[in-house]
């Protein structure tokens, strides 16, 4: 390996010649640049988005735009409250319906189901994540929504004494049906993260509970669920982030009516849906307003996802306060991808 080089005698024979070290440096700095580019890209995106949204914010004011209850394209009046409310109602509904089912599925898969059924069950739930959003929309509007409409009307009639829920006429596209489809769509991710967190529960804890005479359910309630709480909450928040940003299925199912629906079974709009639906023919201030809606959506998902990541990360490293990302912490993040 040494050959008869190094005439100057300054370089030891174990050292590589400067030329041979070049590819190493190139690779290191090349990859570092690549990584830095990702940061630059996001910052650049944010700045450009703010720039494009500025005319709308200038006209309505930031608060006036975000909380104004009037989205009127022809009058050039843009208040995003109906969109914001639509996004929040449908996403929260998705959580209320989807999270209990997802957690139950995870509990069943990790604690109750026969070992042979575990991986087929997991695969089946994950298949839900493979269905594209536009297919959920197609199925929802042509099958689920018409089939459920009589039942929804029945519920709305029975609950007519409760404001915001009952009383009104149930349309086929509405907030509720959108929330239901979103619940199905977030099920795989919430379930996957809950399952992942549940496998980290120490066997000692479970055996201790069983050893003290707890039934299976009591063991789940006192040993498994409390241990996983912050992980499950984090998973639910990631699901919330998904639901808030979901576009095409919502656009198809929510009815695209740019006003506040008066009850749960009324048509509405959402931030993502308004962009998908109106951007194609938007001009001038309208287009700027849609960019502003995108910015509100961006900030909303950033907040939700930030909290979610924090919770999941903490849950996956019970004792960890160290800054390094341990290998154990990373698979969770992969799962969080909803693969």
């Amino acid at each position, binding site marked *: *390996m040494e050959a008869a080089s190094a005439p100057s005698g300054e370089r030891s024979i174990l050292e*590589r010649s400067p030329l041979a070290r070049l590819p*190493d440096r*190139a*690779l290191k700095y090349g*990859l*570092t640049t*690549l*990584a830095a580019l*990702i*940061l630059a*890209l*996001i910052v650049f*995106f944010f700045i*450009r988005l703010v720039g494009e949204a500025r005319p709308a914010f200038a006209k309505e004011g930031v608060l006036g735009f975000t909380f104004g209850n009037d989205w009127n394209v022809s009058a050039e009046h843009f208040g995003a409250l109906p969109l914001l409310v639509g996004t929040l109602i449908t996403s929260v509904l998705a959580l209320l319906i989807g999270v*209990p*089912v997802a957690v*139950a*599925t995870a*509990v*069943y898969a990790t604690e*109750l189901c026969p070992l042979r059924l575990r991986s087929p069950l997991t695969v089946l*739930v994950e298949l839900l994540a*493979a269905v*594209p*959003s*536009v*297919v959920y*929309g*197609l*199925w929802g*509007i*042509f099958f689920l929504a018409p089939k459920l409409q009589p039942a929804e009307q029945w519920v709305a009639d029975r609950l007519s004494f409760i404001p915001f829920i009952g009383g009104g006429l149930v349309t086929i596209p509405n907030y509720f049906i959108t929330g239901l489809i979103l619940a*199905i769509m977030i099920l795989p991710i919430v379930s996957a993260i809950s399952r992942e967190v549940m496998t980290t529960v120490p066997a000692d804890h479970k055996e201790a509970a069983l050893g003290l*005479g707890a*039934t299976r*359910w*009591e063991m789940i*309630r006192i040993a498994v669920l409390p241990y996983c709480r912050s992980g499950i909450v984090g998973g639910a928040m*990631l699901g919330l982030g998904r639901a*808030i*940003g979901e*576009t*095409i299925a919502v656009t*198809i199912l929510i009815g695209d009516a740019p006003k506040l629906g008066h009850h749960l079974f009324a048509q509405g709009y959402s931030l993502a849906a308004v*962009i*998908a639906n109106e*951007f194609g023919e938007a001009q001038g201030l309208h287009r700027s307003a849609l960019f502003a809606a*995108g910015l509100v959506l961006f900030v909303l*998902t950033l907040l939700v*996802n*930030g909290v979610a*990541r924090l919770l999941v990360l903490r849950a996956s490293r019970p004792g960890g306060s160290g800054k*390094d990302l341990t*290998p154990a912490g*990373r698979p969770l*993040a*992969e799962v969080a*991808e909803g*693969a």
Partner: protein
Amino acid sequence: MSSHGSSTQLLTRFDVSPSRRRKDRIARAMILAATVLALIPLALIVYYLLLKGLGSWSPSFFTTDPTGNTFFGSSNIGGIKSAILGTIEIVALASAISIPIGIGVAVWLVEYGRSSWFANTVRFFVDVLTGVPSILFGLFIYIVLIVGTGSSYAGYKGSLALSLLMLPVIIRSAEVVLLLIPGALRESALALGAPRWRVIFSIVVPTALPGMVTGVLLAVARAAGETAPLLFTAASTHNTNFNLGQFMNSLPVQIYSDVTSPTTAVVNRAWGAALTLVVMILLLNLIARLIARRSRLA
């Protein structure tokens, strides 16, 4: 702790009081019911896709372009050839862009960045990218490449939007696999005098390759089903097109525009296209799973 009736009895599992046993049974039944409930939508979606989708499949369905004659009663609406080819072209270019960059960043994170503050910042921003709604990627490409350049929609712009979406998925999954490679493997190569870049290219990446392929395929499968980033970047058109600089059709966008049609035949075409898309995505998922099963690192 509930008290037991008589002290002479042996402690067996039957000593659990009836009310606790009932609670246990009810809770377990409810958990099982919720699990079954979670699987019902999947069964219904698959059933309806097959029922409606197979009905509209025919040889000409795959070999003709959509005609755009979607008016009520028009008989010749055409098939989805341009949509299938468009999806393949757009996703192929998106993969060609995002796979090298994604794996490069993952290699940097594991081999160079490790847990420095800069690497953790990059990880954080990759997480941020993961959470960004897909339609915003479309808006971003629109701002930069359509407003910015004053040009119109094009297939490659759709690819760029999709590649932004794929990047975080690829980076994370590749990083997970790279972390599984034992440090001893790297150290042995370094001890034999191999420079770092050779260690990376000849030892680390080839060892991790099968695992990374899985993550890449899942990212491709996800990108193939996305509609929102393509709406304002690749737009849509009827004709088959092999020039990524032109407007380009794609399966999700085709389905989206067919959903809103009042004509039954067009809606049926949407079902057929949806079945095609789901079959393509499931195939990718299946291959990914098979590869993942074959390559168990560690």
